[in-house]
């Protein structure tokens, strides 16, 4: 009785399509973020200032206040820097910190988009360059927008 031979093609690693090197992406992402720490820090600071704060924690407003406020607006109650009245998001104020507090969430959204875009772009460039011979050193220099 003849044995049945099933021919299975041998796997040859050199002929396989290259996959995504996640560790390389991670290192590129880390170096890109480190190169733009100023922008990332500004985004984080803007985000912290835009966090909603319950008025239950703010004594003057506890009695009649609306549900939430933000840190800049609370500071605006105590530090009154007068400016010409500006309307942002349908709210008019002549207090610099109040105006800044109202604009800040939208500034944060813009910074976040720019930050993500710049870091993503540089990570992509870094990853592409590191695939090329001698590209790792060039990638560390980051060739994208700063």
């Amino acid at each position, binding site marked *: 009785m003849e044995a049945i031979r099933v021919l299975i093609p041998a796997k040859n690693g050199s002929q396989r399509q290259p996959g995504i090197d996640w560790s390389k992406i991670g290192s590129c992402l880390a170096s890109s973020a480190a190169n733009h720490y100023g922008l990332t820090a500004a985004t984080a600071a803007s*985000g912290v200032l*835009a*966090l*909603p*704060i319950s008025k239950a924690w703010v004594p*003057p*407003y506890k*009695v*009649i*206040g*609306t*549900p*939430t*406020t*933000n840190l800049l*607006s*609370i500071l*605006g*109650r105590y530090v009154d820097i007068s400016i*010409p*009245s500006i*309307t*942002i*998001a*349908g*709210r*008019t*104020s*002549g*207090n610099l910190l*109040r105006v800044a*507090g*109202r604009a*800040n*969430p*939208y500034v*944060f*959204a813009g910074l976040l988009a720019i930050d993500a875009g710049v870091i993503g772009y540089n990570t992509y460039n870094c990853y592409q360059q590191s695939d090329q011979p001698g590209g790792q050193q060039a990638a560390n220099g980051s060739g994208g927008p700063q």
Partner: protein
Amino acid sequence: MTDADPRDVVIGVVARRAGIRPEQVSPDARLLQDLHIDGDDAVDTILEIAKRCSVDVSGFDASAYFRSEPSLLSLLPFLPSQKRALTDQKRALTVGELIEAARQRKLTTTQSG
């Protein structure tokens, strides 16, 4: 409590907060919808009038009339809390009602609503 006429006090405070001249403030003007006094500015306005005219505001709920200050939540307009914060869903509080409250020394949500 000052001896000044409550009408002058209210109009003076509102005009200063809105950044306009007192002559431009009419009793029919609504704080949020017409003068765009909102958020913490509106609360400060009420509290200043209450302090200067000795008005009891313990029964007043500002959230029925004014919106919160913008925060990260403002970037998520689909949230129920943000839908409730739309200007057209807020009740109107007029300068005339504030003047009347200053004369009666009491401002409540029921009275002004």
